[in-house]
């Protein structure tokens, strides 16, 4: 063959390769754009709220509701805990960075094969994190005890969290077993089935979680039972059970939660809420708030948000883990753990924002069901007083840590509801 002909064939081949590369790139960009659009649409749908769009919350002067000494005390109380939390997070990242660099050496402690060794490395990562964070946890216990917010002892705090680590390890083991099995089979594309699979597991966990809450009994006060039934009817969630959980004596702050899905859904009131510190109308507001979560499908939405987080997160983990041969190999686990935790911390402001959005909707729902803004205001004051919560924290603290609207915002919402109901 003449040299010019072979050069022409080579050039044609190169042009063909370049065209194929361009086509692949175009398809990839198109697929990415479609996925991003679907992601944005799903986020928009999950963000929908029944709180009126034009609702304007006025700035509440918290001094009208709380004494100056309480405001000083609560601000100092919360700042310490938040700074303690930030330091604990910094240590967490530092420990995981060190672990990502040298954690693979602990593979010699395993005789468990590929997946079992990955599970061991994952658990040891969390174990090191526990060790590094224990001083901060003890500092928080010391601070809370000093402010009479908690009666928990130091030893019991440590022992409980040590044993809780065992429960956490069970979930770590399950998650890593699933992930590494998928990664072993599907190589770099494991994250595609992993994200929906984990969302499905979260759904299952939400479904069965009511059965895992210990020491609950049905609400016994017949007046409250009647209130709960009436509120459930008003919020179109008839048949939702309301139970009381006997929390340990060391716990003093009042709380409640909505748990379960469909037939397992229920409202759980902590016994600290029904110990006489709160009036019947105030407890009714709490019940209505939790029923509001159920009525607006917040538990299901949380699974949806988790899925939206998991899709890019698992893709990124898969990408980074390739530096250690992919997540199918145990030595990639420490690095994957670091990426996951950094992603969790980086998305903390987004997650608290979503949580505040849902809590605001539940507050609004409670106001619509109870028609009792006075009781709601009184409840919010009582909650802040009992847990020494800062009613109006600084912006950085709000963005990073506030998973509920501030007490000032919640009071403002009661006022906004009053204005709207009078206007009608």
């Amino acid at each position, binding site marked *: 063959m003449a040299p010019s002909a072979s050069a022409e064939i080579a050039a044609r081949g190169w042009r063909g390769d370049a065209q194929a590369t361009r086509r692949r790139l175009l398809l990839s960009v198109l697929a990415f754009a479609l996925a991003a659009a679907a992601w944005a649409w799903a986020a928009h749908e999950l963000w929908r709220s029944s709180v009126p769009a034009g609702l304007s919350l006025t700035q509440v002067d918290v001094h009208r509701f709380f004494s100056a000494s309480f405001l000083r005390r609560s601000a100092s109380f919360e700042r310490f805990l938040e700074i303690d939390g930030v330091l604990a997070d910094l240590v967490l990242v530092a420990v995981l960075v060190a672990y990502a660099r040298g954690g693979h050496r*602990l*593979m*010699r*402690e*395993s*005789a*468990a*094969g*590929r*997946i*079992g*060794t990955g*599970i*061991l490395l994952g*658990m*040891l990562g969390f*174990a*090191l994190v526990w060790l590094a964070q224990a001083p901060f946890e003890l500092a928080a216990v010391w601070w809370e005890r000093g402010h009479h917010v908690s009666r928990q002892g130091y030893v019991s705090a440590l022992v409980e969290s*040590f*044993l809780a*680590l*065992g*429960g*956490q*390890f*069970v979930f*770590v*083991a*399950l998650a890593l077993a699933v992930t590494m099995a998928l990664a072993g089979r599907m190589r770099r594309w494991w994250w595609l089935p992993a994200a929906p699979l984990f969302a499905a597991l979260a759904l299952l966990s939400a479904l069965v979680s009511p059965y895992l809450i210990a020491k609950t009994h049905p609400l016994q006060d017949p007046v409250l039972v009647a209130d709960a039934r009436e509120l459930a009817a008003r919020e179109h969630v008839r048949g939702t059970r309301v139970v009381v959980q006997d929390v340990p004596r060391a716990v003093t702050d009042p709380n409640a939660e909505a748990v379960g899905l469909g037939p397992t859904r229920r409202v759980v009131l902590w016994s600290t809420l029904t110990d006489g510190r709160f009036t019947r109308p105030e407890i009714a507001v709490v019940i209505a708030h939790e029923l509001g979560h159920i009525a607006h499908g917040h538990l299901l939405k949380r699974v949806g948000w988790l899925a939206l987080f998991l899709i890019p997160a698992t893709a990124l983990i898969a990408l980074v883990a390739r530096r250690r041969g992919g997540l199918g*190999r*145990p*030595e990639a686990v420490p690095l994957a753990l670091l990426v996951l935790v950094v992603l969790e911390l980086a998305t903390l402001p987004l997650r608290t924002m979503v949580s505040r959005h849902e809590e605001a909707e539940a507050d609004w729902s409670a106001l619509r069901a109870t028609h009792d803004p006075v009781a709601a205001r009184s409840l919010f004051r009582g909650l802040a007083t009992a847990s020494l919560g800062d009613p109006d924290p600084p912006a950085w603290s709000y963005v990073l840590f506030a998973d509920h609207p501030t007490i000032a915002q919640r009071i403002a919402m009661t006022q906004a509801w009053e204005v709207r109901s009078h206007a009608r």
Partner: protein
Amino acid sequence: MLGNPNSAAFNDSLGLAHAAAFLGWFACIALGRMPRGLRDSVAWGVGFGAQLWAYLFMLTSVYPDPDPGVLLGELPRRSDAVGMALRDDGRRSRLTVFFRLPLTFPHLVWLALWSLLALLAAIANWLATLATAHPPAVLHRFLSAYVRYQAHVYGFLTLTANPFPGFAGAAGSYDAELEIAPPERQSRWSVGFRLLLVLPAWLLAAAFGSLLWAAAILGWFAALITGRMPRRLRNPAAQAIRYLAQVNAYLLVLTADYPYGGPCAPAELAAPVRTAAELALG
């Protein structure tokens, strides 16, 4: 006594001696002789108690040693249907020692799930062996893996062995390994009355169980401080795991061999267990 770290082991070794003596009384009445296993267990417990009191009363400066190999001298080498092979240099990672209990949680959950299936398989195995006098190979394999896995998990939890075990109970995969003989013909009478026959072994198993936990708790502190599991605690723990596995295997109709109630010499693992790091390196 309360301040003595060996007091728990002392109580448990005496508990073992009492249980073995109690069973030995019946055996002597029935057979006209004391079975060697029970006799050795009594001697083991009494011997350790004597060492402990002698040390306490300053008759000797030699620290008490509950290792049956030291107390009784040469241990019998046996070829039971279920035996234990141990390969361990005593080294322990302090990190995995400190978190040993939570690290075992996933295994305990998995073991609990496996136990449900094992119960069904055991019933099927019992019925099949009663009918044919021979455990079906597939059930024997499944239940052997279950018994082996249980021994691996307890070996890890009680610090009898160091590495984190796998989840499949694979043969030859662990440092404290059970060797289970292939299925053999069993007497239908022995199979039919297995639940009754296992009762004496259960009594002794309870005593071995207490000994195991005492060794594990003391060993946890020792390994955390020194980075090593003392031989004098590891060996009694290994004896206990071996006996408990023999009882389980007998109960699950894997074998007709009655559990040997005394200490015996563990076999050496033929080939070193390869760690995950070695496996990854090919």
